[in-house]
């Protein structure tokens, strides 16, 4: 298999248990909270950190293999690393920073190549500036140019956009997406920003304390996390315990019992009847009923309740609803602002909601949740 293959295991001082691959031209995002080991994984791929048990291979080259005692030192690996702090050489100009990664070429050829790379990242005209004279976004691009100058077999980006303003970030996303088409190498992107991963990556690893909770396509991870922990990490808020009543194969439904209600979800036959499970629904898939029209019977999974909080964030509103006749966590839903206004949504108001059947995702039961 071509591309990047990584296996890392360790107990101390930093616990690690990861296993993933990335094909050439693909981007894999490592997502997780601080301290989940993302940077350590990048540094291990680069050879800057050596876990107890490790296997790192790029195309046909084995960079690290504790079993056979192989360890190719960092400077012999063709690895392009863009660290979180950019780590530019402060005493060198942008051009000289890029030249530093070009190895021993004659100076004229090196300068030309460096300028080409800087133009590629849209820094034409700034070649003679020192890092102190460049903005954060510009420094980040010099760091990328320098990483590319190495003609790396794998590109490693450690939270490259975290210190950049939103506007610049948008532009940089576009540039990176554009470059991917031209770069035929695997790219590993570390970020704590889920949205970034959703925008940029082909696949995603969800990390917690050095372990991969789930791997897969980003949308799958967000909407169909395989465990409760993963669901929480991707920020799902509507997570509730329930019990599987049974399945209806003719109508392709699964029936759940939740707080003395019946819920119908899309068909998920792997859960046996009688099992205790958890389920989630994204807040955007909980629909508000129009208050001036009574709910029609055929609305999916209708529930009623009272608004306990209501916040407008830009064009969307986020509200929590305490359901009628039940204790337990509130249900969160999103509504476009104009809809919320039209329906006079406010704290204390009674509303009807539908929980969309297709969006109910069942997961294993977990530890009792906090209220």
């Amino acid at each position, binding site marked *: 298999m071509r591309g990047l293959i990584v296996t890392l295991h360790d107990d101390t001082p930093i616990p690690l248990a990861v296993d993933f691959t990335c094909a050439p031209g693909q981007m894999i995002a490592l997502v997780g909270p601080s301290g989940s080991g993302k940077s350590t994984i990048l540094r291990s791929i*680069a050879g*800057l950190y050596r876990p107890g048990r490790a296997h790192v291979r790029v195309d046909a080259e084995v960079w690290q293999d504790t079993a056979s005692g192989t360890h190719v030192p*960092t400077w012999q690996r063709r690895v392009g*690393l863009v660290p979180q702090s950019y780590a530019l*050489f402060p005493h060198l100009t942008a051009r000289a920073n890029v030249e530093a990664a070009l190895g021993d070429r004659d100076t004229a050829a090196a300068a030309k190549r460096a300028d080409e790379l800087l133009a590629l990242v849209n820094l034409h005209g700034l070649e003679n500036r020192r890092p102190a004279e460049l903005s954060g976004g510009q420094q980040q691009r010099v760091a990328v140019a320098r990483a590319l*100058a*190495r003609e790396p077999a794998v590109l490693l980006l450690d939270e490259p956009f975290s210190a950049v303003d939103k506007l610049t970030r948008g532009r940089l996303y576009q540039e990176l997406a554009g470059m991917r088409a031209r770069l035929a190498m695997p790219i590993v992107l570390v970020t704590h920003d889920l949205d970034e991963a959703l925008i940029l990556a082909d696949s995603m690893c969800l990390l917690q304390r050095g372990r991969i909770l789930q791997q897969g396509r980003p949308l799958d991870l967000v909407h169909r996390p395989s465990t409760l922990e993963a669901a929480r990490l991707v920020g799902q808020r509507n997570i509730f315990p329930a019990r599987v009543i049974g399945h209806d194969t003719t109508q392709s439904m699964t029936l759940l019992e939740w707080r003395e209600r019946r819920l119908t979800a899309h068909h998920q036959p792997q859960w046996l009847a009688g099992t205790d499970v958890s389920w989630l629904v994204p807040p955007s898939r909980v629909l508000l009923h129009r208050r001036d029209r009574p709910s029609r019977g055929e609305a999916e999974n209708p529930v009623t309740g009272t608004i306990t909080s209501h916040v407008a964030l830009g064009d969307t509103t986020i509200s929590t609803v305490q359901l009628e006749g039940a204790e337990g966590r509130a249900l969160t839903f999103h509504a476009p602002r104009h809809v919320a206004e039209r329906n006079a949504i406010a704290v204390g108001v009674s509303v009807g909601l539908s929980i969309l059947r297709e969006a109910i995702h069942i997961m294993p039961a977990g530890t009792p949740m906090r209220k």
Partner: protein
Amino acid sequence: MDWVALTLSLKLALMTVLVLLPLGIVAGRWLAYRQFPGKAWVEAAVALPLVLPPTVLGYYLLVVFGAASPLGQLWQSMVGRQLVFSFEGLLIASVIFNIPFAIQPVQRSFETIPPEVREAAACCGMTPWQSLRRVELPLAWPGVLTAMVLSFAHTLGEFGIVLMVGGSIPGETRTIAISIYDRVQAFDDVSAAQMSAFLLALSLVAVALAFGFSRRIGRQFG
């Protein structure tokens, strides 16, 4: 003005610096980059000559290298002269006594280099040697220069150790500091005053330079 003594002192100071330059860089860099159990003890050992009276060091040098010791006798058989009371003996004493001056500013300077920058150098394909030459030394040079200037000035002013292991032999171990002492005892005030003024001026310049470089440690690139 005792030109022989002055030349001897300058020679001793320069050779001390030449010996300590690579040692200071290697040791200072190593201490800056590595954590290991017992590091505090190593750093204390490096700092020891700062607080030890020169007589203590002189005493131990006599014990370890004197005519009665195995090392002293080995030297005698190889070179034909004693190590103590010779320029080489002074050089050894001087190198040991200047270790903190040669290592500490260098260590401090290398410590200001962010580890990510060093890692970036490795990711750029630079071997450790190339990284030292092209990235680390250009960033750490104020510390290296401070160390060299301080060692130079300190050696020029060495007195206690030279007195103990030197023997005040003109052209061999009578440094300028000893010569001043000597001239005072000979009631030759003119000579003593000349040499003292010279040494004072030289030391002032050296310390001013050292402070100037020292302020640049870690700060020269914003």
